[in-house]
């Protein structure tokens, strides 16, 4: 009795001690060692991510009802890939292959199946992001947190589970490419980058990064030839089923940018500042030329500098290009910031002082999504454009300082 009272008075409590010991208990899963807390966290956050996605599965976006659904039914009606010869699709060819495969499934909802497939890629994306975070930080907690954050990032959830869009597949391939590039394996790096561009033409915005890798000797010119080779190989099923080579190439290079009446569709870039309705044809050409000129200046400067392309610097460049390109390219859409959202999170994990970049960018990115969903904006896109410009400048400044520090 005395012992029990003294234990109580000292503040010890069996239940508390048991629970606290349980939290710190190590559990071995093969080579991986996790504490009970970490394991429970991973399981619960994964469950929450599933519930989060399922809560928006019912949304039938305009893109799905206007494009994907008719194409799936077209494939179903033709019951073969021959339907690809019809001029009904204005999207990247590999997406059509996936839609064709979905059309083969009997019973159930096509929309749900598509969203489930895309959501599975969300989890792969989160895993890869965590893997990259571990590479940069060697910290288990940061790895786990990166996985969790990417899983519940609003733009990631909305893109696949709400919107049925394919950005996630492209992003997965970009991260895989990045992983291989960091390991100095140029062939798989270029292979996965090519696959990424096949799913989303906007991924070409990262082409300057691969030019930089070539400039630094991490990638040889013969590796870059993989790009057109893999692209042509991907066209083969479409070519065999009646699609013309010219169309396949045009779709690959320009993707689904069909609306050329306005210089930006809900992405807060330079055209929100200077005007998006006037001189559309002229300004679109000028902006592309301007961007090429900017890249030329950047690469000229970099060619004159001796610096080591460290992993963090490579990540910084990737983020910079994924911010810079959509800012100046015409005809950008709301989802143009998707890649930058992912890279910004990994960047903030690698350099915690840059936490404000993913916070700001994801906020802007999802506001752009909302502009599409609701048809109006509650925050001025012009204001967001200025903020985005500030981000481009800040990341650019970081690169400038890094490159000059690396003498």
């Amino acid at each position, binding site marked *: 009795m005395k012992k029990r009272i003294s234990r109580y008075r000292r503040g010890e409590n069996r*239940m508390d001690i048991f629970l606290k010991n349980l939290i710190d208990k190590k559990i071995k899963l093969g080579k991986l060692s996790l504490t009970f807390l970490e394991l429970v966290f991973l399981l619960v956050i994964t469950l929450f991510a599933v519930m989060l996605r399922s809560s928006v599965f019912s949304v039938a976006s305009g893109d799905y009802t206007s494009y994907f659904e008719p194409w799936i039914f077209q494939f179903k009606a033709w019951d073969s890939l021959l339907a690809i010869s019809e001029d009904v699709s204005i999207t990247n060819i590999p997406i059509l292959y996936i839609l064709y495969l979905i059309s083969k499934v009997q019973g159930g909802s096509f929309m749900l199946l598509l969203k489930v497939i895309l959501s599975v890629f969300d989890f792969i994306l989160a895993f890869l992001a965590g893997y990259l975070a571990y590479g940069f930080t060697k910290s288990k907690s940061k790895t*786990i*947190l990166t996985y969790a954050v990417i899983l519940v990032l609003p733009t990631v959830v909305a893109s696949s589970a709400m919107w049925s869009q394919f950005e996630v597949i492209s992003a997965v391939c970009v991260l895989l490419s990045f992983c291989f590039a960091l390991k100095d394996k140029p062939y798989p790096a270029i292979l996965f980058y090519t696959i990424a561009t096949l799913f989303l033409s906007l991924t070409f915005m990262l082409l300057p990064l691969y030019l930089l890798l070539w400039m630094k000797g991490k990638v040889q010119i013969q590796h870059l030839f993989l790009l057109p080779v893999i692209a042509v190989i991907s066209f083969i099923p479409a070519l065999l089923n009646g699609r013309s080579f010219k169309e396949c190439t045009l779709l690959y290079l320009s993707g689904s940018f069909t609306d050329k009446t306005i210089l930006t569709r809900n992405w807060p870039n330079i055209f929100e500042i200077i005007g998006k309705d006037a001189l559309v044809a002229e300004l679109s050409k000028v902006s592309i030329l301007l961007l090429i000129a900017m890249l030329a200046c950047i690469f000229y400067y970099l060619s004159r500098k001796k610096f080591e392309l460290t992993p963090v610097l490579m990540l910084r460049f990737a983020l910079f290009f994924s911010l810079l390109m959509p800012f100046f390219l015409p005809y950008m859409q709301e989802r143009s910031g998707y890649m930058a959202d992912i890279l910004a999170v990994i960047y903030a994990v690698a350099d915690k002082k840059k936490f404000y970049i993913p916070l700001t960018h994801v*906020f802007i990115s999802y506001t752009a999504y909302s502009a599409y969903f609701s048809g109006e904006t509650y925050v001025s896109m012009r204001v967001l454009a200025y903020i985005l410009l500030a981000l481009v400048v800040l990341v650019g400044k970081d690169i400038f300082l890094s490159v000059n520090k690396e003498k």
Partner: protein
Amino acid sequence: MMKFLKKQKMDAIDLCFLAGMTLLGVIIRVSLRKVVTEDWVMYWEPWLNAFHELGGFKALATDFYDYAPPFMYILYFISIIPVNPMTAYKGVVCTFDFILAITAARIIWNITGNKTKTFGAYGVILMIPTFFANSALWAQCDVIYAVFVLLAIYEIVKKRPNRSMIFYGIAFAFKLQTLFVFPVFLIMWAKNKMKIQHFLWVPAIYLLGMLPAWIAGRPFMELINIYVAQGQQDVYALSLKWANIYQVLGIGTFLYEYTEAGIWIILSILLILMFYMVYKKYDITREMLLELMVFYGLLTIYFLPHMHERYAYLADVFIVLLAFVNPKKAYLALAHIIVSFSTYMMYIAKNFTIPLSYYAIVEFVIIVILGIDIYQYIQANEKKNQAVPKDEKKDQPISQGGE
């Protein structure tokens, strides 16, 4: 209190200040007592009438009310006293305003030991527009649960976790919004400031609070589900004038989907934050405790759907206290109170000055600043092996309680 006053050797200025602020607090509230708001006309007045029409206390057996029973007991008491109901009601809640101010002052005294800050906190709390507007103007009752949450924090500061959870349990018995700051208490447990059994007070007091209404005849399951029923009301917009994320995204867009998604998002965010805060080994100072209360009080209402403008009440209280403990953060209190009161006026006076979406961005920035501060504290405290930083000599870590 008299002992405290004698011990502090108060001078005439102190007494004048306290008396003056008290008088001003009374005058402000009295000047607003005749304002009749929609909530009074639609809810409190009919409920008070229901007590008369349905047999007094026995009326609690019916389902005319959807607030937690303890609040209804206060209404019943108001219904039987021979005073104008609205005056009596506002008198009760305004009395709680003064209890709030006194409790706030006691917390400041315990943390800072500074008399000026203590009396200043008392006076300022009485004058914060959201507080006197909430009780004297709007005839709301958020001050009641806020007082008990404040008492819960006071008891933690005094290293009495058992009493702390009793007060928290009472707060929860009054209002579901008490849960907004529940993560802080979980962190307290993880940092050995309280024991797991202390949490049992919360359901125990909730059940105790239900008892008289159950005895009066209201079915037990209805009483248990009162908060569930509350959550299913006012779901016509994703935000009911609180400056949160839905003001930026659109309060009517994907109403059903965002309602569910918003809950999963905030649960995920809380899970991530809780994982990080429990994972790291550090001690919590009393200032950090206040900061955590503000942070979670703002964060949860930022992402939860269907938030009313009054739901920032707890954050309003603790951000003012934080400003007194650390004056460098006073600008956060100023910015937040401006936003909070502006949202009040949008409802009460239908006065729109700046779009709520911009206020939402301000709130987002405040949350981020607090988040950074908490993160830096954890990093600094962990690295220094829990040594006390130079400028926090006065604010020691909260050691384990004796209860």
